[in-house]
């Protein structure tokens, strides 16, 4: 099975990484922050040439952000989720624009929505929100209902 080969290759190549075959066509790789750019280059060289998305999850209890790079290989038909965690207090990651050009847009959104800084991304300007004051809205400690109450004065509308 091809998934198992990838799992072994990843675990052999990257220190402190774990790979898990979730089901057919899905593989989850967990890496330390430092080896993430190298892993992306490694995966791209191995046929994972389509970056589907970069998503970010706010784990408030662990005080960490989790970046997930979703890669897809057209030839092997395997979807790889490459996960890396960065601390919430100093959210800095390395930009993956050199590997995947269109990561620029995803990183721009994550910067706006979570406040994660990407070193090497020249275009971390606001994308969706105009003149936004306050914390990045997708963080778990930002309560949208509280915000609506304060900003629009809509107490009676809250259910």
């Amino acid at each position: 099975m091809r998934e198992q080969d990838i799992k072994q290759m990843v675990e052999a190549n990257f220190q402190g990484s774990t790979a898990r075959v979730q089901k057919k066509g899905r593989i989850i790789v967990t890496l330390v922050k430092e080896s993430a750019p190298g892993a992306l280059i490694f995966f791209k060289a191995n046929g994972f040439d389509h970056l589907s998305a970069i998503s970010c999850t706010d784990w408030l209890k662990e005080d960490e952000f989790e970046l997930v790079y979703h890669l897809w290989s057209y030839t092997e038909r395997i979807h790889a989720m490459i996960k890396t965690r960065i601390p919430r207090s100093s959210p800095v990651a390395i930009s993956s624009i050199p590997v995947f050009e269109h990561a620029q847009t995803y990183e721009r959104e994550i910067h706006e929505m979570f406040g994660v800084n990407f070193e090497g991304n020249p275009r971390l300007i606001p994308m969706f929100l105009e003149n936004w004051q306050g914390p990045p809205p997708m963080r778990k400690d930002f309560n949208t209902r509280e915000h609506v109450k304060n900003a629009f004065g809509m107490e009676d509308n809250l259910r």
Partner: protein
Amino acid sequence: MDREEIGKIIKSPSKWGQKYSLWAVYFCTGCGIIEIPPVLTSRWDAERFGVMPMATPRQGNMFLITGYVSMKTLGAIIRTYDQMLDPKYVVGFGSCPINGGMYWDSYNTIKELDKYIPVDGWIAGCMPRPEAIFIAVTKLWMMIDNDAATGYKRYKENYQYYERNQREVLPHLPKFAKPEHAQIG
């Protein structure tokens, strides 16, 4: 055209013009815009009522706010509304501009549109059916006949109220950014 209609035309040709020539500003503000193309095209054909989409706000006199209004869109809506010529009519389309609709707890959509610009009529529902737009248009005709569609006059009379609300949510708009401009009204 019956005799009563002709009498009305002779009495006030301007009302006749305002009623049967509602040119809508082409502005897709929200997802309600998906029902506008069917209304304009072959099945419902709004042109037989004189309703046409127009390219720029200066040419239009009806403003359909089709769906939710995000903060960024609100700035564009206010700018567009200010550019339209009098008399102008605003119709809120869908439940989102009425009270926020299903986005009642969204941080980026405004909840009550008529706090920021005057609205002459609402079409409730999500999505309202195309027939509802025609009912709104005929209601608007009745309101024009009875001099009840006076949103643009309200805007001028209560400009301070509207301006205060607009500035509360959009302090960065060029309209409000410079202090000498903020004194107007």
